[in-house]
């Protein structure tokens, strides 16, 4: 029996401070090294993707529920904000909240129907959901401007109207750090363990008193609402959105970030987002060969680091267990 209130060394979860500190420092000094707005824009897109990949990883990596329709919820948030602010003249902050709630309610209603599926069937069902959202956005031309897209007004928050890449950079950088902290907290909490347990063994999770259906629904709603919030903010940042934001390729892109970066790893999702957002930029000089180079890099990564980059490398460096 333990005598003191502190945990023995072997039991204490690995400290999260160094990683967080490192990413915060990088995000703080990064703007100094970015020469112009183009690079800042790339950094912002990476941060957006990283946050989305983290929320998707909660669903796919930790809970084991595959979603191929995540971009649909991003699109709901983006178009929700765009339509509410421009057509109804609603305050952008309120529009963001309303869109997030709408995405959450949709996810909650849909969850009862599709989360009883597993594996390929769940992937198909979420794929269908994403495509339906995408089709609605493309076809409801009166509301959304159809394939031509629509412009989005400025965001206003507590009387502050962020403008320009530099100000938006700080918003998304802060959002990324907050999301990392929230996700890490969740993973290391009773709720997070329940999610991972139902991934590991659903029958055991139920026998331990975990209401698996309820947890699946709740994490689905959480990731959908979070995606919608990011969608709203990025719509305001971009100033102009097209249905592509909700489309299937965007969903696949997000899933790829999770799988390549690392399933069930918050840092993996961040790393995947950085890699998959940067690679196309770096490879742009290959002129026409960049998609092939891109594909080769992904395939090679998955062959040699099958669990994703971060978990596979972490596994290599961890001391062998006795």
């Amino acid at each position, binding site marked *: *029996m*333990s005598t003191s*209130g502190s*945990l*023995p060394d*072997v*039991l204490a979860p690995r400290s999260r401070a160094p990683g967080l500190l490192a990413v915060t420092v990088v995000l703080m000094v990064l703007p100094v090294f970015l020469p112009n707005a183009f690079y800042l824009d790339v950094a912002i897109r990476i941060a957006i993707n990283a946050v989305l990949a983290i929320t998707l990883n909660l669903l796919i990596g930790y809970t084991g529920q595959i979603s191929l329709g995540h971009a649909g919820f991003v699109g709901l948030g983006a178009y929700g904000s765009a339509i509410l602010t421009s057509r109804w003249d609603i305050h952008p902050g309120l529009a963001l909240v309303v869109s997030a709630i709408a995405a959450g309610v949709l996810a909650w209603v849909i969850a009862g129907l599709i989360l009883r599926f597993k594996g390929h069937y769940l992937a198909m069902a979420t794929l269908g959901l994403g495509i339906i959202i995408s089709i609605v956005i493309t076809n409801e031309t009166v509301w959304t401007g159809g394939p031509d897209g629509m412009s989005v007004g400025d965001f206003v928050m507590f009387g502050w109207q962020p403008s320009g890449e530099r100000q938006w950079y700080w918003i998304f950088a802060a959002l990324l750090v907050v999301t990392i902290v*929230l*996700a890490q*907290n*969740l993973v*290391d*909490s*009773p*709720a*997070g*363990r*329940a999610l*991972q*347990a139902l*991934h*590991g*063994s659903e*029958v*055991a*999770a*139920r*026998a*331990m*008193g*975990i*209401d*698996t259906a309820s947890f699946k629904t*709740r*994490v689905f709603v*959480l990731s959908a609402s979070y995606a919608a919030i990011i969608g709203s903010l990025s719509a305001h940042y971009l100033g102009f959105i097209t249905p592509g934001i909700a489309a299937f390729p965007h969903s696949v892109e997000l899933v790829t970030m999770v799988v390549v970066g690392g399933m*069930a790893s918050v840092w993996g999702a961040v790393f995947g987002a950085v890699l998959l957002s940067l690679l196309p930029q770096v490879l742009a000089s290959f002129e026409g060969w960049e998609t092939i180079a891109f594909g080769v890099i992904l395939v090679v990564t998955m062959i040699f680091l099958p669990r994703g980059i971060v978990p596979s490398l972490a596994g290599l460096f961890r001391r062998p*267990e*006795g």
Partner: protein
Amino acid sequence: MLKVSHLSKSFGGVHAIEDVSFEIPRGGVYAVIGPNGAGKTTLFNLITGLYVPSAGSISLAGEEISGISSNILASRGLSRTFQNLQVCMNLSAVENVMVGAHLNLNSSLLAGMIRAPGLRQSDRACRMKAAELLTFVGCKKFVAADASAMPYGALKRLEIARALAMEPKLLLLDEPAAGLNHTETHEIEELIVRLAKSGITVVLVEHDMRLVMSISERILVLDHGKRLAEGTPDEIRINRDVIAAYLGSEVGET
């Protein structure tokens, strides 16, 4: 403690359990035995809410529980281990055990995300208790291990630790000694005896006759889904039907 009356379960035309009745007294070890395919695991799955009975009733401490889903049964103090391991390989050993304490912790997603006040302390206490339980079942050296790095015998005990984290009144062990060698079986035997002494009612499905005979207070024998016999180990040992079922019907003087 647990009363089963006229319980039946059929899958299509197959009668896995047919009109089985028995009563498990509070405290001690109660064993369920029978040849392969006798319906032992089906009986377990009925009691723990994985299957819904075709007929009959199951009552736990006087309350009807048949047809209630397993996560609700857990809150009534019923815990179990599995014949084919159901350990969460994506979690560490300690985390697996902590999952067993799920019902005693604040499991709100939001509270987890913002690390609500009190959550840190309760989680820390839970982690310590999980480590103690791992030590209790004899997995001390795996306290810091990932479940995926543990050997089979240790995983069997990890499941018991997880089931104990729930602080159950009734614990169902589905073949805890299956696949274990002599030493490991002996250790499991001592562990079960200690569990029963601590006041938990243990229900045991097991093939190892020596184990069953030495630690059980009462034994239920199933054959082809029917109740063949019920009684103390000494009664079972000399029961002609039981001997016939195990050794073949044309038994002479053995």
